[in-house]
C-alpha cells in the first residue's frame, strides 16, 4: 500500500506500536476516530521497535489520512561520525537538573524540558556530544559512582546509552514532522515524549488518550524481563530488591510518562480507575477526564438478527494471541467446560502475533487433550462470528475498556470476563441506573480457569440467565457506549484544540 505524504495536516497522531501496523483494540479505536472525522486531515507517526517486527499494514487508511511516516527506535540509525570532543563545560547541568526533577517528583518539568530542548541542538548537548564527548563520559561515570548498585560499569554504560539514544531519534522526528494544528498521542512512552517535545517546539496543543496505563505495563514487563542483567554478588543480593538496571529502565519510562502528562491537555482515560492512576502518576487532576469507548451499534443489528433461537455451545475468545490475553487460562477452562458439556467448543479468534506464545498455547491444547474442542481461527469478522457463538470470554490479565465486549453486546452475546480494567463496570454497571439494567454476563478473577469455566457453564446451561444477560448487554451498549457519545466527546476535544 502506498504511504501518503503531505507537508501539513490538521491533527498529528502519534502512535507507538499500534495502528496501522498492529491490529487490536487500540488500533480499531484509532481507525474509528479517524473515520469519524472526515473533515480533519490526519498525519500519522508510527513509532516501532525495529522494522522487522512489523509486517504489512493491517488497515486500509481512510482518505483523510494524508501523511504517514514510520520510525524505529531500536532499528539501524545513522549515528554521527565518531569524533573526539570535549563537550561544553556545564552542558550537563540541565540534564542533571532534569534528572533531579524526576527523582524528586518536581511538580512541573516543563521548564526543565524547555531548557533541555534549547540545549539539544547546540554543541553542548547534541547527539555527538552525548555519544562521544568527555563531558558525557564524566557525567555518566559520576552517576555510576554515586548511584549504581550494580557493579558492572559495562552494563551500566551501555544501558544508559541504549536508553537515551531514542531521545535524539525522536528529536529528529520532531524536527521534520509536517506542520499540524494539534497533536494527539494514544499512549505515553516514546510517542507521548515525542508529543511533549512537539508541543514545546511548535506550541500546538497535545491531546493524550490512554487506553491502558503504558508506564504500568512497561513496569510489569520489566519486573519479569530476563534480558536485563543483575550483576550483584549473590551474597549481597537482596531478593526483594530488583536489579539497578531494571530500576533505571522503570524510572526512564516513568519519566517519559511524567513529561507527557506535564505537556498534555486534556489527558483522557477510558474509565475512572485509570484516570485516578494517571493522577497518581503525576497528571494534573484538572486536566484529566474520562471518555469511554463507543461502537457503531447499528453495524451489529444484522448479526443480532441472525442468531439461532438457542445459544450455540461455543465459547469464544476474541483477541490477539498474546500473553496479556492469557489465552492459556481460556484453554485450561475449556478442559473443565468440555468435561461438563462434551459438545462445547472453544474458539480463539485473533491474529497470532507472538509466535512463541501461540506455540505454547497450541502445546497446551494438545497436552490437555483438547485437539477436537479448541480451535484457533485467526482473524475473523465480528459481524460474522457473533451469531455463531454462545458466550464471549475474556481471560485477559489486563484490559482497558475492551471494544470486543461492546461489540458482543451489540451482537446479542453475553460476556464472561476477568475482573480487569473496566470489565466489571461493563458487565455489572457503573452507577445505580446502569446497574439497574442487570448483569450482562459474569465477572471472575484472573488466572482462575475453574471460575471462568463455572461462569460460562452457568450461563450456557441456564437459558433464563443467558437471555436476561443478553438483554442487559444490548440495553447497556445502546445507552452508554454508543459511537455517537464517544465521537461527541472527541468532537468537543478536537474543536477546542484546533480553535
Amino acid at each position, binding site marked *: 500500500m502506498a504511504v501518503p505524504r503531505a507537508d501539513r495536516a490538521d491533527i498529528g497522531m502519534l502512535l507507538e506500536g499500534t495502528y496501522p501496523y498492529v491490529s487490536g483494540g487500540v488500533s480499531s479505536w484509532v481507525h474509528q476516530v479517524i473515520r469519524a472525522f472526515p473533515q480533519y486531515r490526519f498525519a500519522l507517526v508510527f513509532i516501532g521497535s525495529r522494522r522487522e517486527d512489523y509486517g504489512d499494514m493491517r488497515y486500509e487508511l481512510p482518505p483523510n489520512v494524508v501523511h504517514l511516516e514510520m520510525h524505529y527506535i531500536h532499528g539501524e540509525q545513522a549515528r554521527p561520525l565518531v569524533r*573526539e570532543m570535549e563537550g561544553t563545560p556545564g552542558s550537563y547541568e540541565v540534564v542533571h537538573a532534569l534528572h533531579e526533577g524526576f527523582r524528586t517528583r518536581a511538580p512541573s518539568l516543563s521548564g526543565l524540558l524547555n531548557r533541555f530542548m534549547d540545549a539539544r541542538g547546540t554543541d553542548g548537548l547534541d547527539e555527538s556530544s552525548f555519544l562521544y564527548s568527555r563531558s558525557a563520559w564524566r557525567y555518566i561515570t559520576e552517576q555510576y559512582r554515586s548511584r*549504581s*548498585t550494580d557493579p558492572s560499569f559495562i552494563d551500566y554504560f551501555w544501558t544508559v546509552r541504549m536508553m537515551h539514544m531514542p531521545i535524539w531519534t525522536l528529536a529528529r522526528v520532531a524536527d521534520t514532522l509536517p506542520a499540524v494544528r494539534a497533536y494527539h498521542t494514544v499512549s505515553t512512552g516514546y510517542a507521548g515524549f515525542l508529543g511533549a517535545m512537539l508541543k514545546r517546539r511548535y506550541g500546538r496543543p497535545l491531546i493524550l488518550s490512554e487506553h491502558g496505563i503504558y508506564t504500568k505495563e512497561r513496569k510489569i514487563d520489566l519486573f*519479569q524481563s530476563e534480558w536485563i542483567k543483575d550483576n*550483584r554478588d549473590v551474597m549481597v543480593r537482596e531478593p526483594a*530488591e*530488583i536489579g539497578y538496571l531494571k530500576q533505571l529502565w522503570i524510572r526512564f519510562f516513568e519519566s517519559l510518562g511524567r513529561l507527557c502528562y506535564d505537556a498534555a491537555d486534556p489527558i483522557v482515560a477510558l474509565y475512572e480507575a485509570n484516570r485516578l492512576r494517571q493522577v497518581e502518576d503525576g497528571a494534573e487532576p484538572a486536566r484529566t477526564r474520562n471518555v469511554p469507548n463507543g461502537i457503531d451499534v447499528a453495524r451489529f443489528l444484522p448479526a443480532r438478527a441472525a442468531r439461532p433461537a438457542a445459544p450455540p455451545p461455543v465459547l469464544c475468545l476474541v483477541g490477539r494471541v498474546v500473553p496479556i490475553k492469557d489465552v492459556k487460562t481460556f484453554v485450561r477452562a475449556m*478442559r473443565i467446560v468440555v468435561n461438563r458439556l462434551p459438545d462445547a467448543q472453544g474458539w480463539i479468534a485473533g491474529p497470532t502475533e507472538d509466535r512463541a506464545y501461540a506455540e505454547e498455547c497450541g502445546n497446551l491444547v494438545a*497436552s490437555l487433550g483438547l485437539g477436537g474442542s479448541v480451535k484457533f481461527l485467526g482473524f475473523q469478522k465480528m459481524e460474522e462470528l457473533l451469531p455463531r457463538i454462545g458466550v464471549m470470554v475474556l481471560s485477559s490479565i489486563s484490559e482497558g475498556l475492551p471494544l470486543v465486549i461492546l461489540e458482543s453486546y451489540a451482537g446479542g452475546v453475553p460476556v464472561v470476563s476477568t475482573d480487569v480494567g473496566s470489565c466489571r463496570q461493563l458487565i455489572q454497571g457503573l452507577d445505580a441506573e446502569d446497574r439497574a439494567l442487570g448483569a450482562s454476563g459474569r465477572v471472575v478473577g484472573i488466572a482462575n480457569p*475453574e471460575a471462568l469455566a463455572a461462569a460460562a457453564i452457568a450461563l450456557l446451561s441456564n437459558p433464563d440467565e443467558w437471555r436476561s444477560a443478553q438483554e442487559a448487554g444490548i440495553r447497556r451498549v445502546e445507552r452508554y457506549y454508543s459511537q455517537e457519545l464517544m465521537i461527541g466527546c472527541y468532537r468537543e476535544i478536537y474543536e477546542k484544540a484546533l480553535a
Partner: protein
Amino acid sequence: MSSLKLAFLALALETSGIAALFAPANAYVVLCAFFVAHGCASLLVALMMMRFVQQFYPASDRSAFGYFAALCFFVPVLGLVALLLLLAFVRYAPTGPRMKAYELIESPRYSSAAAESPPAFNRAGIRPVLQSRTAPLELRLKALLALQSVPSRAANNLIRQMLSEPVDDMRLLAYGLLDAREKVLDARIHGLKTRLEALDTPEGARVTILKELAESYWEFIYRGIVQGDLLRHCVAESRRYLGEFLEREARDPGAWALHGRLLALERKDREADEAFGRAVALGLSETRVLPYRAELAFRQRDFDRVRQLVRQLGTQPTSALAAVTRYWSEDGRPAR
C-alpha cells in the same frame, strides 16, 4: 628497509622482468627470468601491503599476504602498479583532521556505598506486608518479588492470593511470577512428549522419558499450580505415564513411591499403602514414605498405626513435622 626503497626495488624488478621478455635469448630462459623478477616484485609489494594493513588489522595473517602476492603475480604490471599507487595515495594524499589514536582512560571504580541500603523487611514479614492494604505499593511489590526466591510449593499459594488484588501492578506481577513457573513445566512436558513420539528415540531413553513425564505432571500438583479438574487431569496423566513406566521398570522404588502418592490423592488408600510398602521393599528409605503412610492410616482412623508410624519417624524429626511427631508421641492422645 623503508617503504620507498622497497617500492623502487619492486618497480625495478618488474621493469627488468618485462625487459627480459624482449631479450634475444632462448625463450625458456627469457620466461624463467621474467617469472623470477616478476615473482620477487610481487612478494615485495605484498610485504609492503601487509605492513600497511597490519597497522589497522594486527591479526592479518599469511592468507592476506598470499592474496596480495597473488594479485600482483596474476595481474602482471597492472596489479603491482595499482597497489603501489594505492599505498602512495594513502601515504601522501591530503587528509582531513585525523582522529588521534585511542587513549586509555581509567575505568570508574565501583563504590558499594550506594548499594548498602537496609532491607525493607525480613522474610518473616513478607506475608503481613503482602496482605496489608495500607502498606505502600512499592513495598508490597518488593515483598511479592521476594517470593521469587521462595520455593514454589511454599510461595505459590500466597502468590495466587495476590491474583485477586484490586491493584493492577500487584495482580500482574503475581500472575507473571506464577506464569513463569508454569511455563517451565509446560515446556518440559512438551519437550518430553516430542522426544517420546520421535521414532528414533531408543527404547532405553523412552523408559526414562515416561518417568520424567509422570514426574513433571506431578510437579504441577506438588507445587500447587493446578486445582480442581486440572488437578485431576494432571493426576490422570501422571498415572498414565507412570503406569507405562512401571510396566517396563517394575523395580524402581522412587516410581512406586510416586505411584503411592498419586493413589493417595485419588483416595485409594489401601492401594497407596501397598505402593509405599513396595517402594520400601525395593530399597527406598522407610523415612521417605512414613509421613504419607501415617496420613493414610489417619484417614482410615487407625490411630494406633498412626502412632506407631509417627514414632518411627520421631527418631529422625524434621522441622516441618516436629509438631506432628510431638503430638502423636504423647501417650493417650488423641482421644479415640
